[in-house]
């Protein structure tokens, strides 16, 4: 029985599959880097001359980097509050701030519809994948069944298949099946993301077995044990998967473009932005308003759930 227990290493892409990039620093490592970064402020400035110089240099660099990273967003936000003539002037803040651009993209252009599509698709895919990936991850982590290792290799192998290879055959088949231009075609393409299933499995492996064994002895069935015992314990992993999926679908440009090209009423925000950009290239306030609408929800999520986004970076290693 003990030999049967697989460690993380046994399934880590780096160890088994030569073509997958080496495993990234784990979620915990990244989290630790974050905690350490957030918590410790040592070196009170001004102990020695050299240290003082160093501190000044570091803060100057930080300030420079912050400008580089934030001025574009600031410029975008303020432009969305300008009128088109005002964009001709080199001025950060609008003289007469107005929400006209937002009103225009919502009424004259279809951004309300695009936003609705984005919300609906991201929500549906997220819920389905949290369910499917946690269930599948649990089975791969905890249940014994013949062929488990081989099937898990299949899961890992799918991570190596780039979407650029999949989309031609999928486009041809979906056209045959009459799925093109439908919402559920998109959901199908995004269903049961292997990276998230992998993430859930890794998390379930870290949960001690005692608890579920106790539940089993109490006569709880497998699904009940999963739902009542394991799922509540997997909160952080579920949050990470949910955030990752929502962000992934919300920002996805490629698949909505492929699947909804012939169906403008199904466009999501990213495709809507592209469409708008192609037709009205220099309507800057409207384009920037659309951009703010596309970024704001993710920004809000990020403010509240930062560490789960960071956990997502760790899994980027398996995403390839």
């Amino acid at each position, binding site marked *: 029985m003990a030999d049967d227990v697989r460690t993380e290493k046994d399934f880590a892409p780096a160890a088994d599959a030569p073509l997958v*990039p080496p495993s990234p620093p784990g979620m915990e*490592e990244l989290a630790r880097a974050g905690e350490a970064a957030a918590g410790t402020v040592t070196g009170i400035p001004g102990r020695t001359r050299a240290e003082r110089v160093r501190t000044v240099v570091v803060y100057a660099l930080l300030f420079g980097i912050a400008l580089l*990273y934030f001025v574009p967003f600031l410029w975008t936000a303020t432009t969305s509050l300008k009128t088109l003539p005002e964009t001709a002037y080199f001025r950060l803040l609008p003289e007469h701030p107005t929400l006209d651009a937002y009103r225009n993209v919502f009424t004259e252009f279809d951004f309300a519809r695009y936003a609705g599509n984005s919300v609906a698709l991201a929500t549906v895919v997220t819920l389905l994948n949290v369910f499917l990936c946690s269930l599948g991850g649990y089975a791969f982590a905890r249940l014994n069944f013949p062929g488990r290792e081989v099937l898990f290799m299949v899961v890992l192998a799918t991570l190596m298949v780039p979407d650029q290879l999949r989309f*031609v055959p999928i486009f041809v088949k979906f056209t045959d099946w009459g799925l093109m231009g439908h919402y559920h075609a998109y959901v199908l393409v995004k269903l049961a993301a292997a990276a998230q299933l992998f993430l859930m499995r890794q998390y379930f492996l870290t949960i001690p077995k005692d608890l579920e064994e106790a539940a089993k002895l109490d006569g709880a069935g497998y699904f009940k044990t*999963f739902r009542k015992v394991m799922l509540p314990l997997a909160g952080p992993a579920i949050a990470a998967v949910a955030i990752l999926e929502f962000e992934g679908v919300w920002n996805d*440009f490629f698949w909505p473009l492929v699947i909804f090209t012939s169906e403008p009423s199904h466009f999501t925000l990213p495709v809507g932005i592209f469409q708008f950009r192609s037709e009205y290239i220099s309507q800057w306030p409207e384009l920037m308003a659309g*951009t703010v609408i596309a970024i704001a929800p993710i920004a809000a999520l990020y403010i509240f759930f930062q560490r789960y986004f960071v956990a997502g970076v760790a899994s980027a290693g398996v995403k390839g």
Partner: protein
Amino acid sequence: MAATATAARTGETNIGGDRLKEALIGYAFIAVPMLVYGVLFLYPIVYAIYISRYDWGVFGKLDERGWGNYSELVDDDRFRIAIKNGLKFTVAFTILSMALGLFVAVVVNNAIRWRGFFRSAFYFPAISGSAAITAIALYILSADGLFNRLTGLDHAWFGESDTALWAIVGLNSWTTSGTVMLFYLAYLQAIPTDVYEAAAIDGAGAWRTFWKVTFPLLKPGHFFVSTLLVIGGLKMFDQAFIASGGTGGPNNSTLVPVLYLYRVAFSDVRFGSAAAVGLTLMLLMFALTLIQRLTFGRGDRA
């Protein structure tokens, strides 16, 4: 009390039946994902090979071409341009993202106030969607945009064939550097502090310590990050597609491999050739990863 209950229960149960039940439940739990992977990952690879051997148009299969769709790529000027652009982009993007990401990581790794805040803030561009970010870049890098006003330069950065690809390199390096920073921060935290102490005792300054101590110790980080970036760079599509309005222009200067693939499929409606391009690109990506692994990766990681 509990122990006797345990004994009683395990005594009663039929071990063989339990095993079978567990196996069936295991299959049930993974059924939907495995079905999806079969139909939407494994089958498409096989089907792509099949399609790639035909002339394949809007209404499906036409003539069988053998390996013709592959051999014609050799003489296809646009394919050659796409590969050249892809490699140019990937090399520049990888180097610039790593340099910028490492630089930011080293700055943020200092004992500074609000370190967690800065770390999170610099990661923000990385989680903003490609379409939104590209729209911002189109505005800022337009002929009368912010960038030209601040620098005094005068280019329509996405509109000129000499600058368009480099504008995308800059844009993607900017967004990706946040991710690179997070990885390097994790690797930096893993370096034991006594090596810095040793360097300090030897009288090495910050600059020298970085190049002689920190940089070489980050080798596993360099390898890991560069592998991700090379693959990511070869797959780049969104920014080139959006910036060029889907054409790969001006003058094919932003025609990167995946954009070429997209155009063969949807503008030329030659699905056979597109499938051949897709398979060729996948093999190219695997080969590059393998080469990278053999040259840099040996012995760094177990």
